[in-house]
Protein backbone atom coordinates (compact mmCIF):
# COMPACT_ATOMS: atom_id res chain seq x y z
CA UNK A 1 0.00 0.00 0.00
CA UNK A 2 2.98 2.29 -0.07
CA UNK A 3 3.97 4.69 -2.82
CA UNK A 4 7.57 5.13 -3.97
CA UNK A 5 8.96 8.61 -3.57
CA UNK A 6 12.21 9.90 -5.04
CA UNK A 7 14.28 12.25 -2.84
CA UNK A 8 17.09 14.35 -4.25
CA UNK A 9 19.80 16.31 -2.44
CA UNK A 10 20.05 19.79 -3.92
CA UNK A 11 22.52 22.50 -3.09
CA UNK A 12 21.03 25.91 -2.65
CA UNK A 13 22.32 27.46 -5.85
CA UNK A 14 20.78 28.62 -9.07
CA UNK A 15 19.91 26.15 -11.77
CA UNK A 16 19.90 22.96 -9.69
CA UNK A 17 16.11 22.49 -9.64
CA UNK A 18 15.97 23.16 -13.36
CA UNK A 19 18.69 20.53 -13.84
CA UNK A 20 16.50 17.92 -12.11
CA UNK A 21 13.44 18.75 -14.19
CA UNK A 22 15.53 18.85 -17.36
CA UNK A 23 16.94 15.38 -16.72
CA UNK A 24 13.49 13.98 -15.92
CA UNK A 25 11.90 15.70 -18.90
CA UNK A 26 14.53 14.36 -21.30
CA UNK A 27 13.88 10.86 -20.00
CA UNK A 28 10.13 11.31 -20.53
CA UNK A 29 9.35 11.02 -16.84
CA UNK A 30 6.22 12.73 -15.56
CA UNK A 31 6.13 14.43 -12.17
CA UNK A 32 2.83 13.94 -10.38
CA UNK A 33 3.56 15.69 -7.09
CA UNK A 34 6.49 17.38 -5.43
CA UNK A 35 7.63 19.14 -2.32
CA UNK A 36 10.81 21.00 -1.54
CA UNK A 37 12.17 21.13 1.99
CA UNK A 38 14.91 23.66 2.34
CA UNK A 39 17.53 25.05 4.69
CA UNK A 40 19.84 27.98 4.02
CA UNK A 41 22.43 25.73 2.35
CA UNK A 42 20.63 22.81 0.82
CA UNK A 43 17.24 21.37 0.09
CA UNK A 44 15.62 18.00 -0.38
CA UNK A 45 13.36 17.69 -3.38
CA UNK A 46 10.76 14.95 -2.99
CA UNK A 47 8.94 13.72 -6.05
CA UNK A 48 6.19 11.33 -6.94
CA UNK A 49 6.80 10.30 -10.55
CA UNK A 50 5.30 7.76 -12.91
CA UNK A 51 8.49 5.66 -13.18
CA UNK A 52 10.46 5.96 -9.93
CA UNK A 53 13.15 3.38 -10.79
CA UNK A 54 13.91 5.07 -14.08
CA UNK A 55 13.98 8.49 -12.37
CA UNK A 56 16.46 7.15 -9.81
CA UNK A 57 18.67 5.82 -12.58
CA UNK A 58 18.76 8.95 -14.74
CA UNK A 59 19.29 11.30 -11.80
CA UNK A 60 22.14 9.16 -10.45
CA UNK A 61 23.71 9.10 -13.87
CA UNK A 62 23.61 12.88 -13.85
CA UNK A 63 25.54 12.92 -10.58
CA UNK A 64 22.76 13.62 -8.09
CA UNK A 65 22.53 11.96 -4.70
CA UNK A 66 19.13 10.27 -4.83
CA UNK A 67 17.20 7.86 -2.65
CA UNK A 68 13.89 6.06 -2.77
CA UNK A 69 11.54 6.33 0.19
CA UNK A 70 8.28 4.60 0.96
CA UNK A 71 5.47 7.01 1.65
CA UNK A 72 1.71 6.65 2.03
CA UNK A 73 -0.87 8.41 -0.09
CA UNK A 74 -4.14 9.18 1.62
CA UNK A 75 -7.36 10.39 0.08
CA UNK A 76 -8.75 13.47 1.77
CA UNK A 77 -12.13 15.10 1.12
CA UNK A 78 -11.53 18.40 -0.68
CA UNK A 79 -13.62 20.57 1.66
CA UNK A 80 -13.21 22.52 4.92
CA UNK A 81 -11.98 20.30 7.78
CA UNK A 82 -11.18 17.53 5.31
CA UNK A 83 -7.50 17.37 6.26
CA UNK A 84 -8.24 18.01 9.90
CA UNK A 85 -10.38 14.90 10.12
CA UNK A 86 -7.47 12.79 8.93
CA UNK A 87 -4.92 14.44 11.23
CA UNK A 88 -7.21 13.99 14.23
CA UNK A 89 -7.37 10.28 13.50
CA UNK A 90 -3.60 10.05 13.23
CA UNK A 91 -3.27 11.87 16.50
CA UNK A 92 -5.67 9.49 18.22
CA UNK A 93 -3.73 6.54 16.83
CA UNK A 94 -0.46 8.09 18.12
CA UNK A 95 1.16 8.13 14.68
CA UNK A 96 3.80 10.81 14.15
CA UNK A 97 4.09 12.61 10.81
CA UNK A 98 7.66 13.28 9.62
CA UNK A 99 6.45 15.39 6.72
CA UNK A 100 3.53 15.68 4.35
CA UNK A 101 2.48 17.46 1.18
CA UNK A 102 -0.70 17.61 -0.85
CA UNK A 103 -1.85 17.65 -4.40
CA UNK A 104 -5.31 18.12 -5.76
CA UNK A 105 -6.76 15.73 -8.27
CA UNK A 106 -7.79 17.06 -11.62
CA UNK A 107 -11.33 15.85 -11.16
CA UNK A 108 -13.33 14.52 -8.28
CA UNK A 109 -13.93 15.68 -4.78
CA UNK A 110 -10.79 14.46 -3.14
CA UNK A 111 -7.24 15.70 -2.65
CA UNK A 112 -4.34 13.34 -2.15
CA UNK A 113 -1.94 13.86 0.71
CA UNK A 114 1.48 12.22 0.73
CA UNK A 115 2.58 11.27 4.24
CA UNK A 116 5.90 10.11 5.61
CA UNK A 117 5.42 8.54 9.05
CA UNK A 118 8.02 7.53 11.58
CA UNK A 119 6.39 4.10 11.76
CA UNK A 120 5.08 3.30 8.32
CA UNK A 121 3.96 -0.28 9.06
CA UNK A 122 1.83 0.77 11.98
CA UNK A 123 0.30 3.52 9.88
CA UNK A 124 -0.66 1.01 7.18
CA UNK A 125 -2.21 -1.24 9.79
CA UNK A 126 -4.13 1.43 11.72
CA UNK A 127 -5.29 3.94 9.12
CA UNK A 128 -7.90 1.81 7.27
CA UNK A 129 -9.41 0.78 10.64
CA UNK A 130 -9.78 4.45 11.46
CA UNK A 131 -11.69 4.94 8.23
CA UNK A 132 -8.91 6.59 6.24
CA UNK A 133 -8.61 5.57 2.58
CA UNK A 134 -5.10 4.74 1.36
CA UNK A 135 -4.43 5.35 -2.31
CA UNK A 136 -2.54 2.82 -4.43
CA UNK A 137 0.26 4.17 -6.59
CA UNK A 138 -1.51 3.12 -9.82
CA UNK A 139 -4.41 5.33 -8.92
CA UNK A 140 -2.18 8.36 -8.48
CA UNK A 141 -1.17 8.11 -12.09
CA UNK A 142 -4.58 7.43 -13.52
CA UNK A 143 -6.38 10.06 -11.50
Amino acid at each position, binding site marked *: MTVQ*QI*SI*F*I*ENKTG*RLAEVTRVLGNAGINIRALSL*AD*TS*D*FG*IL*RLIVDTPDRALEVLKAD*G*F*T*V*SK*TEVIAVEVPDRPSGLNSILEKLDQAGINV*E*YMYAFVERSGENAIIIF*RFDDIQRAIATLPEAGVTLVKSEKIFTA
Partner: protein
Amino acid sequence: MIWNDEFETLPREAIESLQLKRLQQTVARVQATVPFYRDAFARAGVSADKIRSLDDLRRLPFTLKQDMRDNYPYGLFAVPLEQIVRIHASSGTTGKPTVVGYTRRDIDTWSELMARSFAAAGAGKGDVIHNAYGYGLFTGGLGAHYGAERIGASVIPMSGGNTKKQIMIMQDFGSTVLTCTPSYCLFLAEAAREEGLDIRDFKLRVGIHGAEPWSEAMREEIEEKLGIKAIDIYGLSEILGPGVGIECVEAQKGLHIWEDHFIPEIIDPESGEVLPPGEKGELVITTITKEGIPLIRYRTRDITRLIPEPCICGRTHMRLERMSGRSDDMLIIRGVNVFPSQIEAVLFNIEGVEPHYQLIVDREESLDTLEVQVEVNEQVFSDEIKELQGLSRRIQKDIKDLLGVTCKVRLVEPKTIARSEGKAVRVIDKRKG
Protein backbone atom coordinates in the same frame (compact mmCIF):
# COMPACT_ATOMS: atom_id res chain seq x y z
CA MET B 1 62.35 -8.12 1.31
CA ILE B 2 65.49 -6.11 1.98
CA TRP B 3 67.12 -4.84 -1.21
CA ASN B 4 70.54 -3.89 0.13
CA ASP B 5 71.17 -6.12 3.11
CA GLU B 6 74.59 -4.67 3.85
CA PHE B 7 73.55 -1.04 4.14
CA GLU B 8 69.96 -1.33 5.30
CA THR B 9 70.86 -3.32 8.41
CA LEU B 10 74.06 -1.52 9.45
CA PRO B 11 74.49 -1.30 13.23
CA ARG B 12 73.81 2.17 14.65
CA GLU B 13 77.49 2.95 15.35
CA ALA B 14 78.38 2.04 11.78
CA ILE B 15 75.59 4.26 10.41
CA GLU B 16 76.75 7.15 12.55
CA SER B 17 80.42 6.87 11.65
CA LEU B 18 79.48 6.64 7.97
CA GLN B 19 77.23 9.68 8.38
CA LEU B 20 79.99 11.71 10.03
CA LYS B 21 82.52 10.88 7.33
CA ARG B 22 80.07 11.72 4.55
CA LEU B 23 78.87 14.86 6.31
CA GLN B 24 82.44 16.14 6.62
CA GLN B 25 83.04 15.50 2.92
CA THR B 26 79.80 17.22 1.92
CA VAL B 27 80.40 20.29 4.07
CA ALA B 28 83.96 20.63 2.72
CA ARG B 29 82.72 20.26 -0.84
CA VAL B 30 79.91 22.85 -0.66
CA GLN B 31 82.19 25.26 1.19
CA ALA B 32 84.63 25.02 -1.68
CA THR B 33 82.22 25.03 -4.61
CA VAL B 34 78.96 26.83 -3.66
CA PRO B 35 79.35 30.56 -2.95
CA PHE B 36 76.01 30.58 -1.09
CA TYR B 37 77.33 28.07 1.46
CA ARG B 38 80.77 29.66 1.69
CA ASP B 39 79.10 32.95 2.69
CA ALA B 40 76.47 31.33 4.94
CA PHE B 41 79.15 29.33 6.83
CA ALA B 42 81.27 32.45 7.22
CA ARG B 43 78.30 34.37 8.66
CA ALA B 44 77.59 31.51 11.10
CA GLY B 45 81.27 31.36 12.07
CA VAL B 46 81.60 27.73 11.11
CA SER B 47 83.72 25.86 8.59
CA ALA B 48 84.23 22.29 7.44
CA ASP B 49 87.14 21.60 9.80
CA LYS B 50 84.93 22.42 12.82
CA ILE B 51 82.60 19.46 12.10
CA ARG B 52 84.12 16.82 14.41
CA SER B 53 80.99 14.95 15.48
CA LEU B 54 77.39 14.56 14.36
CA ASP B 55 76.40 16.97 17.14
CA ASP B 56 78.32 19.68 15.31
CA LEU B 57 75.69 19.49 12.59
CA ARG B 58 73.54 21.94 14.56
CA ARG B 59 76.25 24.59 14.23
CA LEU B 60 75.58 24.73 10.50
CA PRO B 61 73.02 27.19 9.09
CA PHE B 62 69.70 26.07 7.64
CA THR B 63 68.88 26.06 3.94
CA LEU B 64 65.40 27.36 3.09
CA LYS B 65 63.26 26.93 0.02
CA GLN B 66 63.64 30.68 -0.45
CA ASP B 67 67.43 30.21 -0.72
CA MET B 68 66.82 27.93 -3.70
CA ARG B 69 64.59 30.55 -5.30
CA ASP B 70 67.16 33.27 -4.64
CA ASN B 71 69.80 31.17 -6.38
CA TYR B 72 67.55 30.25 -9.31
CA PRO B 73 68.24 28.34 -11.45
CA TYR B 74 71.71 26.83 -10.95
CA GLY B 75 73.20 28.86 -8.09
CA LEU B 76 73.26 26.01 -5.55
CA PHE B 77 74.74 23.41 -7.93
CA ALA B 78 78.03 22.08 -6.56
CA VAL B 79 79.32 20.76 -9.89
CA PRO B 80 79.71 22.37 -13.31
CA LEU B 81 76.66 21.99 -15.57
CA GLU B 82 78.47 19.53 -17.85
CA GLN B 83 78.40 16.97 -15.03
CA ILE B 84 74.64 17.33 -14.61
CA VAL B 85 72.72 14.68 -16.56
CA ARG B 86 69.18 15.52 -15.41
CA ILE B 87 67.31 18.60 -14.26
CA HIS B 88 64.00 18.58 -12.39
CA ALA B 89 62.00 21.43 -10.93
CA SER B 90 59.27 21.59 -8.35
CA SER B 91 55.94 23.14 -9.22
CA GLY B 92 56.30 26.73 -8.12
CA THR B 93 52.88 27.71 -6.85
CA THR B 94 54.19 31.21 -6.32
CA GLY B 95 57.03 32.69 -8.32
CA LYS B 96 59.90 30.69 -9.74
CA PRO B 97 60.16 26.91 -9.36
CA THR B 98 62.98 25.35 -7.36
CA VAL B 99 65.50 23.64 -9.61
CA VAL B 100 67.51 20.52 -8.85
CA GLY B 101 70.29 18.89 -10.86
CA TYR B 102 71.52 15.30 -10.75
CA THR B 103 74.90 13.90 -11.70
CA ARG B 104 75.09 10.40 -13.15
CA ARG B 105 75.97 9.12 -9.69
CA ASP B 106 73.00 10.98 -8.16
CA ILE B 107 70.66 9.21 -10.59
CA ASP B 108 72.29 5.95 -9.60
CA THR B 109 71.82 6.70 -5.89
CA TRP B 110 68.21 7.68 -6.50
CA SER B 111 67.53 4.44 -8.39
CA GLU B 112 69.13 2.48 -5.54
CA LEU B 113 67.01 4.24 -2.89
CA MET B 114 63.81 3.81 -4.92
CA ALA B 115 64.72 0.14 -5.40
CA ARG B 116 65.12 -0.23 -1.63
CA SER B 117 61.77 1.52 -1.24
CA PHE B 118 59.96 -0.77 -3.69
CA ALA B 119 61.47 -3.82 -1.99
CA ALA B 120 60.42 -2.49 1.43
CA ALA B 121 56.86 -2.15 0.08
CA GLY B 122 56.96 -5.79 -0.98
CA ALA B 123 57.46 -5.26 -4.71
CA GLY B 124 60.04 -7.07 -6.79
CA LYS B 125 60.91 -8.87 -9.99
CA GLY B 126 57.76 -10.20 -11.62
CA ASP B 127 55.63 -7.28 -10.50
CA VAL B 128 53.90 -5.03 -13.03
CA ILE B 129 54.33 -1.52 -11.69
CA HIS B 130 51.68 0.94 -12.84
CA ASN B 131 53.38 4.28 -12.36
CA ALA B 132 50.75 7.02 -12.30
CA TYR B 133 53.00 9.71 -10.87
CA GLY B 134 53.46 12.55 -13.33
CA TYR B 135 56.43 12.28 -15.70
CA GLY B 136 58.17 15.51 -16.48
CA LEU B 137 59.69 18.23 -14.35
CA PHE B 138 58.01 16.68 -11.30
CA THR B 139 60.33 14.07 -9.77
CA GLY B 140 57.59 11.52 -8.99
CA GLY B 141 57.28 9.82 -12.36
CA LEU B 142 60.91 9.32 -13.36
CA GLY B 143 62.05 8.71 -9.77
CA ALA B 144 59.68 5.77 -9.33
CA HIS B 145 60.39 4.61 -12.87
CA TYR B 146 64.15 4.17 -12.39
CA GLY B 147 63.65 2.35 -9.10
CA ALA B 148 61.09 0.03 -10.67
CA GLU B 149 63.52 -0.86 -13.45
CA ARG B 150 66.32 -1.33 -10.92
CA ILE B 151 64.39 -4.05 -9.06
CA GLY B 152 63.63 -5.76 -12.35
CA ALA B 153 59.88 -5.17 -12.34
CA SER B 154 57.92 -4.41 -15.52
CA VAL B 155 57.11 -0.73 -15.32
CA ILE B 156 54.20 0.93 -17.15
CA PRO B 157 55.02 4.64 -17.53
CA MET B 158 51.40 5.84 -17.26
CA SER B 159 52.03 9.30 -15.83
CA GLY B 160 48.99 11.15 -14.43
CA GLY B 161 45.59 11.88 -15.92
CA ASN B 162 43.48 10.07 -18.51
CA THR B 163 41.71 8.13 -15.81
CA LYS B 164 39.61 5.84 -18.03
CA LYS B 165 42.71 4.64 -19.84
CA GLN B 166 44.48 4.12 -16.51
CA ILE B 167 41.70 1.79 -15.40
CA MET B 168 41.64 -0.11 -18.69
CA ILE B 169 45.40 -0.64 -18.67
CA MET B 170 45.46 -1.55 -15.00
CA GLN B 171 42.90 -4.24 -15.70
CA ASP B 172 44.17 -5.50 -19.06
CA PHE B 173 47.91 -5.39 -18.27
CA GLY B 174 47.42 -7.00 -14.88
CA SER B 175 49.16 -4.25 -12.88
CA THR B 176 50.16 -5.51 -9.43
CA VAL B 177 51.67 -2.35 -7.95
CA LEU B 178 50.22 1.15 -8.22
CA THR B 179 52.28 4.28 -7.58
CA CYS B 180 50.34 7.56 -7.34
CA THR B 181 49.19 10.20 -4.87
CA PRO B 182 46.70 8.91 -2.26
CA SER B 183 43.96 11.25 -3.46
CA TYR B 184 44.37 10.06 -7.05
CA CYS B 185 44.20 6.48 -5.81
CA LEU B 186 40.73 7.05 -4.36
CA PHE B 187 39.76 8.97 -7.47
CA LEU B 188 40.69 5.93 -9.57
CA ALA B 189 38.63 3.62 -7.36
CA GLU B 190 35.64 5.92 -7.70
CA ALA B 191 36.05 6.25 -11.46
CA ALA B 192 36.30 2.46 -11.81
CA ARG B 193 33.11 2.01 -9.83
CA GLU B 194 31.33 4.40 -12.17
CA GLU B 195 32.37 2.17 -15.05
CA GLY B 196 30.89 -0.77 -13.19
CA LEU B 197 34.34 -2.14 -12.29
CA ASP B 198 35.78 -3.04 -8.91
CA ILE B 199 39.54 -2.64 -8.57
CA ARG B 200 39.43 -5.33 -5.88
CA ASP B 201 38.84 -7.79 -8.69
CA PHE B 202 42.03 -6.65 -10.46
CA LYS B 203 45.48 -8.12 -9.82
CA LEU B 204 46.58 -5.04 -7.91
CA ARG B 205 48.01 -5.88 -4.50
CA VAL B 206 50.21 -2.97 -3.38
CA GLY B 207 49.86 0.80 -3.62
CA ILE B 208 52.76 3.15 -2.93
CA HIS B 209 51.46 6.60 -2.16
CA GLY B 210 53.03 9.91 -1.33
CA ALA B 211 53.62 13.51 -2.44
CA GLU B 212 50.83 14.77 -0.18
CA PRO B 213 50.00 14.22 3.49
CA TRP B 214 47.39 11.54 4.19
CA SER B 215 45.92 10.02 7.30
CA GLU B 216 45.76 6.52 8.73
CA ALA B 217 42.01 6.56 8.09
CA MET B 218 42.62 7.37 4.41
CA ARG B 219 44.94 4.37 4.27
CA GLU B 220 42.16 2.14 5.58
CA GLU B 221 39.81 3.55 2.99
CA ILE B 222 42.29 2.91 0.16
CA GLU B 223 43.05 -0.60 1.38
CA GLU B 224 39.35 -1.38 1.62
CA LYS B 225 38.27 0.18 -1.68
CA LEU B 226 41.10 -1.21 -3.81
CA GLY B 227 41.81 -4.39 -1.88
CA ILE B 228 45.52 -3.60 -1.58
CA LYS B 229 48.25 -2.86 0.96
CA ALA B 230 48.76 0.91 0.90
CA ILE B 231 52.32 2.01 1.69
CA ASP B 232 53.36 5.54 2.58
CA ILE B 233 56.41 6.89 0.75
CA TYR B 234 58.22 10.14 1.48
CA GLY B 235 60.28 12.37 -0.71
CA LEU B 236 60.77 15.88 -1.89
CA SER B 237 62.48 17.09 -5.01
CA GLU B 238 64.90 19.38 -3.16
CA ILE B 239 66.37 16.40 -1.32
CA LEU B 240 66.05 13.73 -4.02
CA GLY B 241 62.46 13.09 -5.14
CA PRO B 242 60.48 10.03 -4.06
CA GLY B 243 62.43 7.46 -2.09
CA VAL B 244 63.87 9.53 0.77
CA GLY B 245 61.93 7.28 3.12
CA ILE B 246 59.29 4.57 3.02
CA GLU B 247 57.22 2.35 5.27
CA CYS B 248 58.10 -1.30 5.33
CA VAL B 249 55.27 -3.69 4.52
CA GLU B 250 56.16 -5.69 7.64
CA ALA B 251 55.26 -2.95 10.13
CA GLN B 252 53.45 -0.26 8.09
CA LYS B 253 54.32 1.98 10.98
CA GLY B 254 56.66 4.87 10.32
CA LEU B 255 58.86 5.53 7.28
CA HIS B 256 62.48 4.37 7.27
CA ILE B 257 64.65 7.25 6.15
CA TRP B 258 67.79 6.06 4.34
CA GLU B 259 70.33 7.24 6.88
CA ASP B 260 73.41 6.31 4.88
CA HIS B 261 72.39 9.11 2.48
CA PHE B 262 70.47 11.57 4.66
CA ILE B 263 70.72 12.91 8.18
CA PRO B 264 67.33 13.80 9.66
CA GLU B 265 66.81 16.26 12.51
CA ILE B 266 63.62 17.49 14.16
CA ILE B 267 63.48 21.15 15.11
CA ASP B 268 61.07 23.56 16.68
CA PRO B 269 59.80 25.43 13.58
CA GLU B 270 59.58 28.69 15.55
CA SER B 271 62.93 28.79 17.35
CA GLY B 272 64.95 26.53 15.06
CA GLU B 273 66.24 24.59 18.10
CA VAL B 274 66.84 20.86 17.69
CA LEU B 275 64.22 18.95 19.71
CA PRO B 276 64.95 15.95 21.95
CA PRO B 277 64.54 12.51 20.31
CA GLY B 278 60.91 11.48 19.85
CA GLU B 279 59.45 14.98 19.94
CA LYS B 280 57.30 16.28 17.14
CA GLY B 281 58.47 19.19 15.03
CA GLU B 282 59.74 20.18 11.59
CA LEU B 283 61.88 17.72 9.70
CA VAL B 284 65.27 19.02 8.59
CA ILE B 285 67.37 16.91 6.20
CA THR B 286 71.03 17.10 5.26
CA THR B 287 72.04 15.19 2.14
CA ILE B 288 75.42 13.48 2.56
CA THR B 289 75.98 11.77 -0.78
CA LYS B 290 74.46 14.11 -3.32
CA GLU B 291 76.80 15.64 -5.86
CA GLY B 292 74.64 17.86 -8.06
CA ILE B 293 72.94 19.88 -5.37
CA PRO B 294 73.90 18.86 -1.83
CA LEU B 295 71.75 20.61 0.77
CA ILE B 296 72.79 21.37 4.32
CA ARG B 297 70.03 21.29 6.95
CA TYR B 298 67.21 21.79 4.48
CA ARG B 299 63.99 22.80 6.19
CA THR B 300 61.33 20.53 4.69
CA ARG B 301 58.35 22.21 6.44
CA ASP B 302 56.99 18.71 7.05
CA ILE B 303 55.84 18.00 10.58
CA THR B 304 56.79 14.62 12.05
CA ARG B 305 58.84 12.96 14.78
CA LEU B 306 61.64 10.41 14.73
CA ILE B 307 60.86 6.91 15.99
CA PRO B 308 64.16 5.66 17.48
CA GLU B 309 62.85 2.21 18.50
CA PRO B 310 64.06 -0.68 16.32
CA CYS B 311 61.65 -1.97 13.68
CA ILE B 312 60.46 -5.56 13.34
CA CYS B 313 61.57 -5.67 9.69
CA GLY B 314 65.27 -5.73 10.58
CA ARG B 315 66.16 -2.43 8.94
CA THR B 316 68.22 -0.31 11.29
CA HIS B 317 67.48 3.04 9.67
CA MET B 318 65.38 5.30 11.85
CA ARG B 319 61.73 5.82 11.10
CA LEU B 320 59.77 9.03 10.64
CA GLU B 321 56.24 9.07 11.90
CA ARG B 322 53.63 9.54 9.17
CA MET B 323 53.74 13.24 8.22
CA SER B 324 50.99 15.05 10.08
CA GLY B 325 51.06 18.06 7.79
CA ARG B 326 53.31 20.79 6.56
CA SER B 327 54.20 23.71 8.73
CA ASP B 328 53.17 25.93 5.83
CA ASP B 329 49.86 23.99 5.40
CA MET B 330 49.08 24.80 8.97
CA LEU B 331 46.14 27.14 9.25
CA ILE B 332 45.87 29.47 12.17
CA ILE B 333 42.19 29.98 12.82
CA ARG B 334 41.35 32.37 15.61
CA GLY B 335 44.73 31.58 17.13
CA VAL B 336 44.34 27.79 16.94
CA ASN B 337 46.69 25.68 14.83
CA VAL B 338 44.72 23.50 12.43
CA PHE B 339 46.11 20.96 9.98
CA PRO B 340 43.83 19.84 7.15
CA SER B 341 44.84 16.25 7.99
CA GLN B 342 43.19 16.59 11.41
CA ILE B 343 39.88 17.53 9.82
CA GLU B 344 40.28 14.67 7.37
CA ALA B 345 40.69 12.29 10.31
CA VAL B 346 37.45 13.56 11.89
CA LEU B 347 35.54 13.02 8.64
CA PHE B 348 36.91 9.53 8.20
CA ASN B 349 35.62 8.55 11.61
CA ILE B 350 32.05 9.30 10.62
CA GLU B 351 30.45 6.31 8.97
CA GLY B 352 29.70 6.84 5.30
CA VAL B 353 31.33 10.24 4.92
CA GLU B 354 33.62 10.41 1.90
CA PRO B 355 37.12 11.87 2.04
CA HIS B 356 36.15 14.58 -0.40
CA TYR B 357 36.25 17.78 1.56
CA GLN B 358 37.46 21.31 1.21
CA LEU B 359 38.21 23.93 3.80
CA ILE B 360 37.29 27.52 3.08
CA VAL B 361 38.98 29.99 5.40
CA ASP B 362 37.85 33.58 5.38
CA ARG B 363 37.73 36.59 7.62
CA GLU B 364 34.56 38.42 8.58
CA GLU B 365 35.00 41.64 10.52
CA SER B 366 38.48 40.63 11.66
CA LEU B 367 37.25 37.23 12.83
CA ASP B 368 38.52 34.10 11.07
CA THR B 369 35.87 31.76 9.75
CA LEU B 370 36.28 28.13 8.75
CA GLU B 371 33.82 26.41 6.48
CA VAL B 372 34.13 22.68 5.96
CA GLN B 373 32.48 21.47 2.76
CA VAL B 374 31.55 17.82 2.74
CA GLU B 375 29.98 15.92 -0.13
CA VAL B 376 26.70 14.13 0.53
CA ASN B 377 26.73 10.64 -0.92
CA GLU B 378 24.00 8.00 -0.86
CA GLN B 379 25.33 6.46 2.32
CA VAL B 380 24.76 9.56 4.41
CA PHE B 381 21.83 11.01 2.49
CA SER B 382 18.51 11.00 4.21
CA ASP B 383 15.33 12.46 2.84
CA GLU B 384 14.68 14.10 6.19
CA ILE B 385 16.17 17.52 6.82
CA LYS B 386 16.70 16.81 10.51
CA GLU B 387 18.91 13.81 9.73
CA LEU B 388 21.16 15.85 7.44
CA GLN B 389 21.30 18.68 9.92
CA GLY B 390 22.22 16.10 12.54
CA LEU B 391 25.13 15.01 10.33
CA SER B 392 26.30 18.63 9.99
CA ARG B 393 26.12 19.10 13.73
CA ARG B 394 27.97 15.86 14.38
CA ILE B 395 30.85 16.93 12.10
CA GLN B 396 30.88 20.36 13.66
CA LYS B 397 30.94 18.92 17.18
CA ASP B 398 33.67 16.38 16.41
CA ILE B 399 35.87 19.12 14.93
CA LYS B 400 35.19 21.37 17.90
CA ASP B 401 36.00 18.52 20.32
CA LEU B 402 39.27 17.66 18.60
CA LEU B 403 40.56 21.07 17.59
CA GLY B 404 38.67 23.53 19.73
CA VAL B 405 37.59 25.44 16.64
CA THR B 406 34.00 26.19 15.72
CA CYS B 407 33.36 25.76 12.04
CA LYS B 408 30.46 25.92 9.69
CA VAL B 409 29.71 22.67 7.90
CA ARG B 410 28.25 22.93 4.44
CA LEU B 411 26.86 19.82 2.82
CA VAL B 412 27.41 19.89 -0.93
CA GLU B 413 26.37 17.74 -3.87
CA PRO B 414 28.64 14.91 -4.96
CA LYS B 415 31.51 15.84 -7.29
CA THR B 416 31.19 19.55 -6.63
CA ILE B 417 34.57 19.63 -4.88
CA ALA B 418 37.25 19.65 -7.54
CA ARG B 419 38.85 16.24 -8.01
CA SER B 420 42.55 16.36 -8.54
CA GLU B 421 44.52 14.08 -10.73
CA GLY B 422 47.65 15.19 -8.96
CA LYS B 423 47.61 16.78 -5.55
CA ALA B 424 44.32 17.58 -3.85
CA VAL B 425 43.43 21.20 -3.21
CA ARG B 426 42.09 20.97 0.32
CA VAL B 427 42.28 24.54 1.45
CA ILE B 428 41.07 27.80 0.00
CA ASP B 429 42.31 30.60 2.19
CA LYS B 430 40.54 33.78 1.20
CA ARG B 431 42.33 35.78 3.90
CA LYS B 432 45.43 35.92 1.74
CA GLY B 433 45.71 38.45 -1.03
